């Protein structure tokens, strides 16, 4: 009898916990956003700065995600298919962004490219702005989202080994054919999974971006920074929550895509 009650209690407890800490806050965002009606909600987007933040977020993610995808695939390919000196150092370095606080990550870029440094002086002399400008945001975002794709691919490619690639070589295939005909089809779902996680983080990143941004309205505010500025500032309330629904929606879409990928993978394996 106890063996039947215990699981039920544990399951209920889990649902309660998830509801309290995950679902409730998410619901609160939507409730707050729509509290004054749909018209007010829509009106929140009728703001030049809001649109500028959305554009900047899309631009930043649009640069950071493809770069990390290319790097991620190349790095995972090297690490899993070849033996070379310094491989373990590389694997450890890849995890660095997960280990470092995002604020520190942002600060590092300020220290490298800021005015006081040698680099900064050179950049200033050539009229190139990195810190408190879009390039800084992109750099910080790349740093923070760096491990997502590689981390997703390495275990997958390790498990698959190099036999299929060796078979392809013996059949006369060159590197290009081997990648596109053998390796890529084997990793495409894992890769897509890594991409959406990378994207979700790239669009939602706050800490590192906050340090390098300078919070210049209409120029260096991404969606998360805009939300904070608005919430702290003059037009608190609905407007901040309205923008927050965008990020929340992004999270939900990410989860849905992730579930679809997992479902497809499972179906294929059957």
């Amino acid at each position, binding site marked *: 009898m106890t063996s039947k009650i215990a699981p039920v209690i544990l399951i209920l407890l889990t649902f309660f916990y998830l509801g309290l800490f995950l679902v409730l806050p998410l619901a609160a965002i939507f409730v707050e956003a729509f509290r004054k009606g749909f018209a007010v909600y829509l009106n929140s987007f009728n703001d030049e700065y809001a649109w500028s933040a959305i554009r900047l977020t899309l631009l930043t993610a649009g640069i950071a995600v493809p770069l990390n995808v290319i790097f991620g695939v190349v790095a995972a390919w090297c690490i899993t298919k070849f033996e070379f000196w310094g491989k373990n150092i590389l694997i450890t370095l890849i995890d660095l962004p997960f280990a470092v606080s995002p604020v520190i990550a942002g600060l590092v870029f300020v220290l490298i490219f800021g005015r006081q440094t040698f680099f900064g002086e050179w950049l200033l002399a050539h009229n190139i702005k990195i810190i408190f400008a879009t390039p800084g945001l992109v750099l910080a975002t790349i740093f923070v989202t760096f491990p997502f794709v590689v981390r997703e691919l390495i275990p997958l490619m390790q498990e698959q080994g190099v036999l*299929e690639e060796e078979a392809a070589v013996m059949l006369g295939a*060159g590197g290009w054919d081997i990648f596109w005909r053998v390796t890529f089809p084997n990793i495409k779902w894992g890769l897509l999974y890594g991409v959406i996680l990378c994207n979700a983080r790239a669009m939602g990143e706050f800490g590192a971006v906050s340090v390098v941004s300078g919070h210049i309205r209409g120029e260096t505010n991404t969606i998360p920074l805009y939300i904070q500025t608005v919430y702290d500032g003059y037009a608190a309330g609905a407007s901040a929550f309205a923008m927050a629904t965008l990020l929340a929606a992004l999270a939900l879409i990410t989860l849905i895509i992730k579930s679809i990928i997992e479902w497809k993978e499972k179906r294929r394996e059957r």
Partner: protein
Amino acid sequence: MSVEVRNITKKFGSFVALENINLTAPDGDLVALLGPSGSGKTTLLRIIAGLESFESVSGADILFRGVSVVGDRLSERRVGFVFQHYALFRRHTVYGNIAFGLKVRRGKERLSSRAIRERVMKLIHLVQLDGLELRYPDQLSGGQRQRVALARALAIEPQFLLLDEPFGALDSRVRQNLRRWLRRMHDEIKLTSIFVTHDQEEALELADRIVVMNKGRVEQEGTPTEVFHNPKNEFVMDFLGNVNLFHGRIESGRVFLEQSGIIANVDDRKRFFVRPHEIELVPDNIDNAGLPAKIKRVQLAGAIVKVELTSIENNEIFVEMSHEKYAVHKFQNGDSVFVVPKNSIVFPEDYSI
């Protein structure tokens, strides 16, 4: 096309996987690399394929039809390779797997898609997979996968074929069928082939030549008859089939097996190796040539009768005989008999199993 391996040594760190290997696979032959696991046979196969490097000592070379291929790119070698676990492309169909080598060709060598289709369908027919061309590897049985791997290797019209434990992952029934089928196919297309195996029966049944390997060295090379009947040393004798070991001495051309109580002069003591089918069991010790033993088990099920005995010194002795021969005495468990070797081989004493 003949394949020649000269002075090949391979080390993994301080471990010597292959030590100065020399061997030749004559044109059109089916050659077996036979040895226990860890003997270096797969490493040798991969070196011949070009998948593995070797130590660049002077004279180290690999030649196809007398021409060195060491500097060649892998894709130019045109070697058909069948991997142990097939390594089929899991995201490609049977058709896609077999067509792969043709689809990745570039430039002049490229075939039209119709020519590719024709050749692939011909191969699918050759390996008896008609109707399965749209299946994926995980929808095939082990034997079918094996044949896809073979067809895929043959599609590029290789100069020769290398097979790594081609039947290792199959159950014994499928293995036997596929073995015979491979032998027939080899007789038809006469493609020089080298295959790796640890199964002596497989090597004896399938190969034109057998290369027996142990601990990174070639112990013996020859036809199945040669290596089976004239083994060069104890290892080859032992590896190519069951064998009984007796101690004894030779006196005026006669073999006297040692038994407890009779201690021979140590210098004369020799080791006699006798195959189970070359032993006779008799109820009486005529001529004093036999060794007393007790019957432990008689296995009647099968084409031959297998008898297990223990000697007075408590060593196990295996004997095989025909049912006709068994019918003469009809020994039962527990019977005391005498073991008389009809044919034995003595090796120089510098080697032990």
